Each structure stands twice: as structure tokens, then as C-alpha cells.
């Protein structure tokens, strides 16, 4: 598909004919590189991922080391972002928190994609009663404001980071199911699918070889945006005391702990929130940029 679209362009245009066929990926990257928002987003996301991976190397102090002589100190040369209510270095805790947020984002989005996308694929391809049953179940999940369903699940299963990740993942299942169903429905009508079916290709082969590869782009865009949603939701659950245990440097947790000292040591709540905002902004910008870059209508 990628090579053929490139060669068609090459045959049609005069000056274009001299160019080598371009792959979809390189065209997407080219379009992405022309969008300042997407570049900023990708930079923020790359920084976040690198910080998450290299937190132990980058952190100036042990994130758990309490120093009761230096509690709630404002930012200084010694502690760039200050210390928390137990005298722990805030910067080190934030860096480790990035690692947690990265894991939460990836796992919860993974749960959503791995369950939601196949459901949508089956629903869209099978149609009829199967479609009705799957989509009505998705409607039920969508009937709840998303944060509320996550709260209900975590309240019942018990507060923990794992349960928070599962809850956030489950809440996103209908988003992927609907997206995948929509894509499958439109691809199902394409001539090449009909041709494939008419020569007796088995359904599972059509689904995995023809339908699935063509539905990847919207799933990638949605997942990028959904990581932002997951990080925000996990911080929200942490803030409500429904996420990681209190001593874990999860950003929402840090905000909840720091809240008590908001008027005497506001820096404890300023920085974790700023970190959440920058990471979410990064994923949002990158998701928007990817959507524009992958949309064929945006192509020349």
C-alpha cells in the first residue's frame, strides 16, 4: 500500500517523477516535522520518556531519604525544587514519579487497546447480533462519567496503583472499540476486501492481514491522546488517595500530601502539577500533530 501510493504519485507528476517513492512513515514524519506544535509535543514526550528511564541516574538524591532538619524548604541551590513535608528532595521524587506515570500511561492504554480494539474489530466485521451485543455493552460503560467508573472500581477492589491502572484501562475500552468498529465498517466495504472474500480467503486472514493494518493509524493517534488522559486520571486517583500507597512518589500522591502545607510551602504542590501539565500537553500536541500528519486529506 505504501510503495504503490508513492509510485502512483511518481508516475503522475512531472518533477515528482524524479523522486523516489516515499513510504507512508517518511511522509508522516515529514509532515510532523513541519508542525511546530508536534515538534514541541514530541520533544516534551521524548524528555519525559528519557527522564522516566534514567530517573535513577538523573536524581540528585535518594527519593526516599527523609531529612527532618530540612522539611518543606523552598527551592535552593542544594535542592533545586525544594524539599517536601519529610525533607525529601522534591526534584528526585518528581523524576521517579515520571517513571511511574510512564508505566501507568503505557499499561492502562495497553489494556484499553488490547481489549477494546479486538472487540471493535469483531463488532464491525461480524455485524448483526454480535455487533449489537458488543456495542450495547460499550454504551453501558460510556454511561458513566469516566472518572466516576474508575473511582467505583478502585473503591471496590481497594486502592492501589495496579487497580488504578486497570480501572483507567477498562474505562478506555469503549473508546477503542468504537474507533475500531468505525474503521472496520468503512474498510469492510472496500473493493479489495470484497475481492479477497470472493476468492475464499478465511475471515481471520482478512481481519489480520487486510483490515487490521489499515486501522492502525487512528489507533496510534488515539493512544497518544489517551496516554495524556491516563496520566491525568492516575494523578486524579492519586490525589483522591485511591492510587499508589502514600510514600510512593506518584505525582497525584505528591499533590495530595503537599495540599496540607499549601499556604506555608506552596512549592510542594506547584511542581508536581506543573510536571503533569507539561507531560499531558506534550502528548496532546503530539497526538494532534500525528492526527493531522496521518490524515490523507492533509497530504498534498
Amino acid at each position, binding site marked *: 500500500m505504501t510503495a504503490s501510493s508513492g509510485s502512483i504519485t511518481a508516475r503522475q507528476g512531472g518533477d515528482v517523477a524524479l523522486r523516489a517513492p516515499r513510504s507512508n512513515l517518511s511522509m508522516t514524519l515529514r509532515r510532523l516535522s513541519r508542525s511546530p506544535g508536534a515538534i514541541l509535543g514530541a520533544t516534551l514526550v521524548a524528555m519525559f520518556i528519557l527522564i522516566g528511564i534514567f530517573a535513577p541516574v538523573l536524581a540528585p538524591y535518594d527519593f526516599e531519604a527523609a531529612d527532618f532538619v530540612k522539611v518543606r524548604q523552598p527551592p535552593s541551590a542544594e535542592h533545586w525544587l525544594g524539599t517536601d513535608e519529610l525533607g525529601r528532595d522534591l526534584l528526585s521524587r518528581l523524576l521517579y514519579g515520571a517513571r511511574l506515570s510512564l508505566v501507568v500511561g503505557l499499561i492502562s492504554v495497553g489494556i484499553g487497546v488490547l481489549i477494546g480494539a479486538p472487540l471493535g474489530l469483531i463488532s464491525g466485521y461480524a455485524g448483526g447480533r454480535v455487533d449489537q451485543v458488543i456495542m450495547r455493552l460499550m454504551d453501558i460503560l460510556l*454511561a458513566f*462519567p469516566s472518572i*466516576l467508573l474508575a473511582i467505583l472500581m478502585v473503591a471496590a*477492589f481497594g486502592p492501589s496503583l495496579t487497580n488504578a491502572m486497570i480501572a483507567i484501562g477498562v474505562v478506555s475500552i469503549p473508546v477503542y472499540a468504537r474507533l475500531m468498529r468505525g474503521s472496520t465498517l468503512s474498510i469492510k466495504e472496500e473493493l479489495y476486501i470484497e475481492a479477497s472474500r470472493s476468492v475464499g480467503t478465511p475471515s481471520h486472514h482478512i481481519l489480520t492481514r487486510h483490515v487490521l493494518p489499515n486501522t492502525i493509524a487512528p489507533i496510534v493517534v488515539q493512544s497518544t491522546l489517551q496516554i495524556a488522559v491516563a496520566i491525568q486520571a492516575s494523578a486524579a486517583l492519586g490525589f483522591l488517595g485511591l492510587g499508589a500507597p502514600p510514600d510512593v512518589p506518584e505525582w497525584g500522591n505528591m499533590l495530595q500530601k503537599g495540599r496540607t502545607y499549601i499556604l506555608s510551602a506552596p512549592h510542594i504542590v506547584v511542581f*508536581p502539577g506543573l510536571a503533569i*501539565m507539561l507531560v499531558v500537553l506534550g502528548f*496532546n500536541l503530539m497526538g494532534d500533530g500525528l492526527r493531522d500528519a496521518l490524515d490523507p486529506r492533509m497530504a498534498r
Partner: protein
Amino acid sequence: MTQYILRRFLWAIPVLLGASFLVFWSIRWVPGDPAIAIAGELATPELVEKVRAELGLDQPLPIQYGIYLGRMLRGDMGTSVRSGLPVFEEIRIRLPRTLQLTFFSLLFAAAIGIPIGVLSATRANTWIDALSMIFALLGVSMPIFWLGLMLIVFFALTLPSWLGLNQPILPPTGAGTWQHLVMPTIALAANSMAIQARMTRASMLEVLRSDYIRTARAKGVPEFSVVYNHGLRNALIPIVTVIGLQFGTLLGGAVLTETVFAWPGIGRLLVDSIGYRDYPVIQGTVLVITVGFVLVNILVDVLYAYLDPRIRYT
């Protein structure tokens, strides 16, 4: 139109039944005996047995659900483990506060978000447009509970110190006066405001490119009238839908805002109840908010169909 409304309400019945089943079933996710979870960990064995008999916990699951549904329809949501009051009463006292906060947030979001979107669209690709959209993007990316905390820092610490005052400009927690309403309203509205600004911009840009706008300009209609009377009026249809859908989302967001500002609504009741493992209240508040969310979504669909007749016939 009546047929459409009827269809929408009929569609909502299985969804509401499904949602209520999920809420009913959630008590079974709690590790241990559901009767103890509902009666409270400190309940006497007699009380636990009474709850078991009342809820039919020894009966098959469909019958238990039937009993639960019957009780909910009668407004009997059980008794709060923490206060001993009926859950329905606990919610009834607090619901008006949550609705008040949600309503004002929605109003505030629309009052700021729509003009920003219009300004952005009429000045598309200028620095005003870029600035407005950066503002909107920040609004979408900012956690509302953190914005709430930052507002407290600003109005209770930074601004008073600039003005040389010894007390907060606005009360950081509680409810009762209009001053109490300012910070929670802004915090809860931020996200919705940003979404409305982005939506208004997109919708306005599309409308402003249409032929009838070009005709209006060619006829010499003043620009203000072109933008507001011809443009915004037609661009408002999708915006109204978004505003309506935001109401439901704000109901969910109220849980966080009410926690930050100790606002005495049902969101805070829910969070407090989780701490006390007060499952009847948790189930009751989640059910009430969800039913509200579904009903508001239906109303929005009906309003959309009223505004845009094409919807009814598809």
C-alpha cells in the same frame, strides 16, 4: 420529533439498566462478604444477617438485582454506614450544591470559551489566534485539581501579600456565599472552557467559509453582523451540543473540585465515603451521577435534533 424523543428514551432504558447492574454488582468486587461490606465492618452479626435477608443475598443473582432495582426505584438506597442516615437523604441534601457548582461552571466556561473561539476564528492564523489556542491547549492539559490548588495559592497567599493584606481575598474552602463559589467555578470550568473555545473556532471557521457568508459580505452587511448574526448563529448548533455534553462531564469533575475546596456536594460525599468504606453511599452517589449524566445526554440529543432537523430523519 415526538417519535425521535421516544426512541432516545427507549434506547436509554437498557443502558440505565446495564449501568445500574454494574453499580449493584460492584459490591461483589469488594473482597469478603457483601453483607458485611454493606452493613459496615463494625456491624453486629444480627445487623449483618438482617442486611443479608433484606437484600436477598442468599437468593440467585437476578432476584437480588430485581430486589435492588425495586428499592432504587422507590428511592430506598439503603443506610449510610457512617452517619446512619438514609443514603437518599444524604444525597438530597448535597445534590443542590453540586448542581449549583456545575451550572455556574458551565455558564462561566461558555461566557469565556465561546468569545475566545469566535475571536480566534475571525483572526485565524494571527498571533491572537495562536495565543488563544495555546490558552485552550493549556486549559485541556491542566489537571483541574491542581488548578484549584493554584487558585488557592494565588487568592489566599500571593495576591493578599501583593496588596499587603493579612487575609485571603477569597475563602479557600467551604460554601455559602458567592465568594465561596468563585474559585471552584473557575477550576471546574477551565477544561470545559478550553474545549468550547476549540470547538467554537473549528465550527466558526467552517461557517465563515460558506457561500451565504460571502453573499452577506458582498451585500455590504457590516462585519460585526456577518460574524455574530450570520456566522455564530449557525456555528452554535454543534457548540450547544458540546456545552450540553460538558454538563455531564462536569458532574464527574465535580468530585475532584469539591475535594479541593471542601465543597459540600455529592462529589465530596463520594470521596469521604470511600475513606469510610461506606458502600451504600458510594453506590448511591455513583448511580445518581450516572443517571444524571445519561439523562443530560438524552436532552442534548433532543435539543440537537430540534436545532438541526436533519438529525431526526437519519
